[in-house]
C-alpha cells in the first residue's frame, strides 16, 4: 500500500472523531464560543455597555432572553461580548506560561547539573507562596488591568509546564533514540528540540486544556476582585462580581455569565481528555 502523507493519522480522522463523542462535544463547545466571539457585533442584539434606565432588572423575556442588569444593559449581549475577553484570557494566559515553561523544562532536564538546580530552586520558591497571593501581589505592583494579569501568569504559571517537561526529558534522554542521535553526531539543540521535546510534549498539551480552565477561572476571580478587567467592559467574572448585590432580586444577572464560564471550562476539559487519548495513539 502506497500512502504519502506527512500525518499518519490523517486518513482515520473522521472515523476517529465519530467514535469519540467527548472529543466532538468538547470541540463543538469551544467552536461555538469562538464563533460567537468573532461575530459578537452581529450576534449580539444590543450594545453591551448601553445603559437603559427604563429597563432595569428585567427578568428574561422575548426582548431580553437573559434579562437585563441593574443598569438596564442586556445580559445576553454582555455574555456574548464577554466571550471575546474570556477566550483571550484563556489563550494568552496559557500560551506564555506554556512557551516559557517548555523551554526552561527542556533545558533544565537535558543539561541537568547547575542549570537544573538553579531553575528547580526558582520553582521551589514560587511554589512556596500560594498561587493567588503571588498573582495578586504582582498585579497590585503592576497596577490593575488585563496586561498585568498576563504578565503575572507568565511569571508564575510556567512552573507547572517546566516541571512536567523536565520530568519527561529526564526519562527520554536516557533512551536509546537519544543516545542514537548523539552517536550520529547531532548537536545538543537538535537532540533537545527536534527529538526529545516532541516526545515529551504530549503530557503538557493535555495539561494546556485543564490549565486553560484554571486560567479562565483565575481571570474571572481576578476580575471579580477588581484587579483584572475594569467595568464597564463585559467580562463574565466582572459580571458575576457586579451582580452579587442583586442576587436575591435578579438571579439571571449572575446565572448566565456563570453558566458561560462553566460551559467553556467543561468544553476545555472534554477536549483535554480526548487529546490525552489522541496523543497516546503513537505510544
Amino acid at each position, binding site marked *: 500500500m502506497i*500512502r504519502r502523507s506527512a500525518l499518519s493519522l490523517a486518513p482515520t480522522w473522521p472515523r476517529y472523531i465519530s467514535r469519540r463523542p467527548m472529543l466532538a462535544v468538547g470541540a463543538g463547545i469551544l467552536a461555538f464560543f469562538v464563533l460567537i466571539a468573532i461575530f459578537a457585533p452581529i450576534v449580539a442584539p444590543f450594545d453591551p455597555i448601553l445603559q437603559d434606565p427604563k429597563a432595569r432588572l428585567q427578568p428574561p423575556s422575548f426582548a431580553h432572553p437573559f434579562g437585563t442588569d441593574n443598569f438596564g444593559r442586556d445580559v445576553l449581549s454582555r455574555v456574548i461580548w464577554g466571550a471575546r475577553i474570556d477566550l483571550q484570557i484563556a489563550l494568552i494566559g496559557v500560551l506564555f506560561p506554556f512557551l516559557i515553561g517548555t523551554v526552561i523544562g527542556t533545558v533544565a532536564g537535558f543539561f541537568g547539573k547547575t542549570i537544573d538546580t538553579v531553575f528547580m530552586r526558582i520553582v521551589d520558591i514560587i511554589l512556596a507562596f500560594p498561587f493567588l497571593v503571588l498573582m495578586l501581589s504582582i498585579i497590585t505592583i503592576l497596577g490593575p488591568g488585563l496586561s498585568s494579569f498576563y504578565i503575572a501568569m507568565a511569571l508564575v504559571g510556567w512552573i507547572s509546564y517546566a516541571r512536567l517537561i523536565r520530568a519527561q526529558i529526564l526519562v527520554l534522554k536516557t*533512551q536509546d533514540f537519544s543516545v*542514537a542521535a*548523539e*552517536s*550520529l*553526531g547531532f548537536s545538543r539543540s*537538535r537532540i533537545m528540540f527536534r527529538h526529545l521535546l516532541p*516526545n515529551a510534549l504530549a503530557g503538557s498539551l493535555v495539561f494546556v486544556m485543564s490549565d486553560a480552565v484554571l486560567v479562565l477561572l483565575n481571570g474571572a476571580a481576578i476580575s471579580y476582585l477588581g484587579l483584572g478587567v475594569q467595568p464597564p467592559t463585559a467580562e463574565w467574572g466582572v459580571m458575576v462580581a457586579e451582580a452579587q448585590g442583586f442576587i436575591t432580586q435578579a438571579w439571571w444577572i449572575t446565572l448566565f455569565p456563570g453558566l458561560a464560564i462553566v460551559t467553556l471550562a467543561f468544553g476545555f476539559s472534554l477536549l483535554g481528555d480526548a487529546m490525552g487519548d489522541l496523543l497516546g495513539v*503513537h505510544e
Partner: protein
Amino acid sequence: MSAAAEISGREASRPVLTVKGLTIQVATPEGAKIVVEDLGFTLNHGETLCLAGESGSGKSMTALAIMGLLPKPMARIASGSITLADGTELTGRSERAMRKIRAQRISMIFQEPMSSLNPVMTIGKQLEEVLLEHGMCSRSEAPARALDLLRDVQLTEAEKRLAQYPHELSGGMRQRVMIAIALACNPEILIADEPTTALDVTVQAEVLELIRALQREHGTTVLMITHDMGVVAEMADRVVVMRNGKQEEAAPVRELFAAPKTAYARELLAAVPRIGAAPTRPELERTRHTVDVEDLCVRFPMRGGLLNRVNARLHAVEGVNFRIAPGETLALVGESGCGKSTIGKAMLSLVPYEGSIRIEGQQMAGLSPHALKPIRRNVQMIFQDPGASLDARMTVGKQVAEPLVVHGLASGSELQDRVEWLFRRVGLPADHIDRFPHEFSGGQRQRICIARALALRPKAIVADESVSALDVSVQARVLELLRELQEEEGLAYLFISHDMAVIDQVADRVAVMNLGQIVESGSRDQVLRDPQHAYTRRLLSAVPFPDPTRQRPPVIAREGPVGSPVRPLDDPAPRFPLAEVAPGHWVAGDAA
C-alpha cells in the same frame, strides 16, 4: 527428563488440565481481533508441556486465560473450555471463585522477577502473605514455613534473605523467590511464562535445573511458555508450536525436533542458531586495523556519605585492548554487568574513558565535541531495542536523512535518492519512508536502524545485542543482512551479545569479558571449541542445546565468590595479564 519421559510414555497418564476450543478476543480500535483461535491441549500429571512460538503467537494470552488474568476489559474468552482434573470449569468463573484456584491449584511465574515482586515488602513477608491468604498455616507457623520454602528453592543464606528486600537480590535469586511463592500452596500446575528470558545464561541453566528438581520432588505439572527452542529441548516432554493464535503442531519433544511435520515448525527449528553448526569463516588478511583500542578504562564515580563525595568507583571497563580489521567481526561476550556494552558506548564517545581508541588510525580520545564530529561518522551503533532507538514522532525517512543533513553530506533530490537507496539496501520498500516507526514490525525497525547507521558510510559498526530482541526467524534474516553489508563494504563489526549460539554464527574472533576485563580472546574456534579460561568454560556449559537427544551436562560451578566491580578509591582493580596459549589465543592468568 528421564522420569518425566517415563510418565508421558505411560498409557495411564492422567490429565490434570484440559483446554478445548479456546478462542480469545482482544478489542482493538479496529474492532475485535482473535488472538487465540480454537486451541486445544491436555496437560498430563507430572509432565512438562511447552507452548512454543514467536511473539504474537498468543502463547502468553493462553496462560493468562488459564489463570483468569486476561487484561480486562480488552480481552475475553470468546468460546472454549478450560477444565481441571476434577471437572472444575475455569472459564466464566467469578473473580472470587478464581482466587481459590490461583496459587492453590494453579500458580504462575513471570518473565520479569523484579517487577513481579513488591519492592517495599521483605521476601519473608511476601511468602507469608501467600501462605496466610490461602490459609496454608497459622500466623505463628508462617515464618518457619517461609524459610522452608526458600530452602526448597536452594536459595543461599535463606535466613538472611527473609529479611531482605527484592532490590538486594540478584535476578536469579528473585526468580527463585518467585518460584518459592508460586509453589507455596503446593499447586498441581505451575505455569512458567518465559521464566528465564531475562536472566543470564548460567543463571538460566540453574533456574531450569531447579524447576526440574522441584517437579520431580512434588510431582507438579509444568506448562512452560517460551520462544527459546533450546529451553524447549531441555525442558519439554511435549510441545505445542503456536503461530498467530493457532496450533501449528503438537508432538512429543523428540519427535518434533527429529521430524517436524509442519512447514512452520521446520522453518522455526531451522532458524535456531546452534553452537558448532556454523560454517568456518574465511581467514581474513589482517594487515591494517579499522579499530584499535588500547588500555581502555571506564570508571564511574560512586557518590555517597554525608557530603555526597566520590567514595568509590565502579570499574566498568579495566585495561581492555583489542583490534578489528576491515571486514572482521569481533564478538564481545559476557554476562550482564560485565562491561561489554560500556565498551560499545566508549567507542562512540558516549561515556568518558581513559586510554586510546583509534578508528581508521584517527585518535578519538581527548577530542573536543567539535573536532570529534567528523571522525565520529566512522563508527556507528545499532542498538538492542529498535523500537526505543527510533524517534516515535518522526517519519523513518526523515530519521535516516537526518544524519546526512546534519553532516552536510546530501541535500535536495540527492538526499531523497540517497535515503531511498539506503531503504532498498536494507531490504525495505522505498515508498515506506513517509511512515512512522510504529507502523513497522520489530525486524523492519531494526533494518531502519541499520539504514540510519549506514547513512554516514561508517567504517566500523558497534552492534549492541542488535538481534536479541528479535524472533529467531527475523534474527536470522537480520544477521544475513549484516553479513552481506560487511562483505560489500568491508565493515568492521564489534558484535556485543550474551547469546553464544549467535556469536558462533557471526564472529571471526571472540573476546570473553568478566568484571570489566577480557579473560579470554582468540579466533571463534579457539574460544568456543577449545575454551581455556574457567569462566569461558562455565559460560559455555550453561548454553542449552536445541536438541532433546543431547543431555546438557550440569553447569560448571562458579569458582570462588562473585566479584564486584565497585572498589574504594584507594583500591585499584587487579589486572589479569593475558598469556598466549596458542597463536592468537590469549587467556587471562592470575592477578599480577
